[in-house]
């Protein structure tokens, strides 16, 4: 893959999202782990069509502001590089221009990314 490739995705957070019912009762807040999953799925769009990938590493994840119903989350992912079946990405989520979360993630293309000491 070519380093520097970039993709942007948008997620509208609504009160109807089922995971917000209990997180937290009366105080809906998008779970940080789902922000990371959204980053991972967005990063997956940069991989070749037809390949599937799994998360191999989450590094330096920060959650700077709560994400609540009504927010439109913009997820920007840039590829930093790859080796073998592994690809590293820098991801940033923002709402109204303010960063709400950021992380670096590694995706392993399925079947190639097993830990193999090489």
């Amino acid at each position: 893959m070519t380093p520097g490739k970039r993709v942007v995705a948008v997620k509208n957070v609504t009160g109807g999202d089922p995971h917000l019912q209990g997180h937290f009762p009366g105080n809906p807040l998008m779970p940080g782990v789902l922000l990371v999953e959204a980053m991972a799925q967005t990063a997956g769009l940069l991989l070749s069509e037809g390949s599937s990938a799994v998360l191999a590493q989450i590094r330096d994840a920060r959650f700077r502001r709560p994400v609540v119903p009504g927010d439109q989350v913009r997820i920007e992912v840039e590829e930093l590089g790859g080796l073998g079946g592994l690809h590293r990405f820098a991801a940033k989520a923002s709402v109204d221009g303010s960063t709400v979360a950021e992380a670096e993630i590694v995706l392993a293309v399925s079947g190639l990314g097993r830990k193999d000491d090489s």
Partner: protein
Amino acid sequence: MDDIVQRVRQLLATRLKLAKAVDEIGDDTPLFAPTGLGLDSIDALELVLGLEKEFGVVVEDRAVAIRVLASIRTIADFVQSQGKG
């Protein structure tokens, strides 16, 4: 060359957050063997990106990575062979 070796050690320590472990290994210690530093393929990717940023050298693929990332000395040799450092 000693300078390159030191910078490679620094790279390992900071990019992989292994400062103490790196201090304790020799220049020829296998980086990926369980008896050495015990790195894995995710660490290899991190090192490849770090080498590109720090020295401007490109490790093209997995085959080259296996050869170049064998030890601190092989990394330093590779950097020097590329006319960098």
